[in-house]
């Protein structure tokens, strides 16, 4: 019992060290800086055309949060597993008294934290904009729910890219494949299912629409596209189901990615 407790304590400490090391890596390679800069710059674009209400402004700004989350997940989780083998840094880190699972869990958590940080930054900038344009009192309370949903989607996106990082051999491949899977493949499947009158409830990018849907207002951007799609059946993701789907992607992606990471041999 005492030995098991000692081992768990060691595993937790090793995972913590791995998280810290990865975050240092992100900051040294300026990855974190670049994505954080995007999180600050993108909301500023929306000063160009300011709508009448704070809700619509928030919906406009949040139109881009999904893309930012996917970019962030691809950049941070893309090399989490395969990068270690590709760059042969595993020959330094593996022959040490720590489990591989601790190293790879640390890498996953670091990617997750970095993406959470980017999302937080994006929402903070947006809140400051709303406060400046409409006053603090005008901040929609639904933004809290939207933020929570964005965190769930972040976890799902990071897990999907992490899975590809365990599956593929090169960091560049897993980064690109992860990005295209979330941005193109799932979107195409979602569109096809919608056209055949099937609700794509199990597609994580469909669930991610909740980030703006929970605000209860529509974005004033892209109204022309909406008119063009008006003949299609209109599905709206259910909050509970959407969160469950994102959670499922997060758990399955992480577990599958970790299993692949532990099976990899030099």
């Amino acid at each position: 019992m005492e030995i098991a407790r000692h081992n768990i304590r060691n595993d937790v400490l090793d995972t913590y060290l791995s998280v810290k090391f990865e975050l240092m890596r992100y900051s040294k390679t300026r990855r974190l800086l670049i994505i954080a800069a995007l999180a600050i710059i993108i909301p500023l674009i929306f000063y160009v055309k300011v709508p009448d209400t704070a809700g619509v402004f928030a919906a406009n700004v949040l139109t881009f949060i999904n893309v930012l989350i996917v970019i962030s997940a691809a950049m941070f989780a893309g090399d989490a597993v395969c990068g270690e083998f590709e760059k042969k840094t595993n020959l330094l880190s593996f022959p040490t008294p720590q489990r591989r699972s601790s190293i790879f869990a640390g890498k996953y958590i670091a990617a997750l934290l970095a993406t959470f940080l980017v999302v937080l930054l994006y929402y903070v900038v947006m809140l400051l904009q709303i406060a400046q344009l409409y006053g603090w009192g005008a901040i929609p309370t639904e933004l809290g729910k939207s933020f929570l949903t964005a965190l769930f989607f972040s976890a799902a996106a990071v897990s999907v890219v992490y899975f590809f990082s365990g599956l593929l051999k090169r960091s560049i491949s897993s980064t690109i494949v992860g990005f295209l899977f979330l941005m193109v493949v799932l979107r195409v499947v979602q569109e096809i299912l919608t056209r055949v009158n099937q609700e794509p409830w199990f597609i994580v990018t469909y669930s991610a629409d909740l980030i703006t849907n929970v605000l209860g207002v529509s974005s004033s951007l892209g109204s022309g596209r909406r008119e063009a799609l008006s003949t299609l059946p209109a599905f709206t993701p259910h909050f509970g189901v959407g969160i469950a789907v994102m959670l499922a992607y997060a758990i399955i992606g992480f577990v599958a990615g970790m299993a692949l990471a532990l099976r990899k041999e030099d």
Partner: protein
Amino acid sequence: MEYAIRTENLVKRYSKGFTALDGVSLQIRKGEVVGYVGPNGAGKTTTIKILTGLLKPSSGHAYVNGIDVTANPREALRTIGALIEVPGVYDYLTPHEMLSYFGKVYRMSGGEIDHRIKETLELVRLSDWEHKKIGTFSTGMLRRLTIAKAILHKPDNLILDEPVLGLDPEGIRDVRELIRQFRNEGMTVFLSSHLLGEVAEVCSTVIFLNKGKVVSSDSMDTIGSTMERKAVDVKFLKPLSREEIEKLRAIELVSGVDVNDNTARLLYDGKPESSVQILRRLVSSNFDVVSYNVESAGLEDYYVSVMGEGKGSN
């Protein structure tokens, strides 16, 4: 007797049916510097990867300080420092940042980490580079840095896989000197290499591996005496005359003479006493001897004799 490193019938089969190790059993005593040699593909790196927990054996066991590496890797790997092949490094970090991380992994205290970083970087002559980006380092510096990482936690056992691969002569000399230093400090060193000269320079025992099997394991002294060729090469001041050659043939301990200009190879029974007697006879017979060398075959010849010429895996 507890060995520093021991393996029992290690077998490693890969999924494609290739057997990299076929029942390898090794016994390395504490404080020994052991060379592990064999052709490319013989299974040296596979053995080392199993000893350092990078690979799991298909069957058999590997022990470090009596601890089973597969069953209890955390405890076993705490006592090992390893340099395997040419590992990747974190280009964007400094040696201090990289070694600090590994110091924490080995549960060293903050003060201990700083002290050991200074000590090891001084040992590998990288003190001036402690806070410089690793990405700017030369190949030799990188190798020395990875050695510093391997010895940071003062391991009992050091496992080095081709440590001089790709290094220039100066880099090779540096690594050789470091291994000598580790040996003097009482560390057990297990050195895998296909450069026999390196092994002969620093190792006390050599294990020969071929096609996944140990074919020979001997001390350097035994190898040296086995390979004595029962011949002595003598260089004279001037080319020998016909009479002088006859005089050489007349020495009773000499069984054959092969003369070439001012040198002669004298064949004898190989006993050291006989060699001394022959030298005395040469001097007493007024030969002008410039040099007198008992010829002994090197590790290369021994390697060929145990492996069979051209019978390596590759």
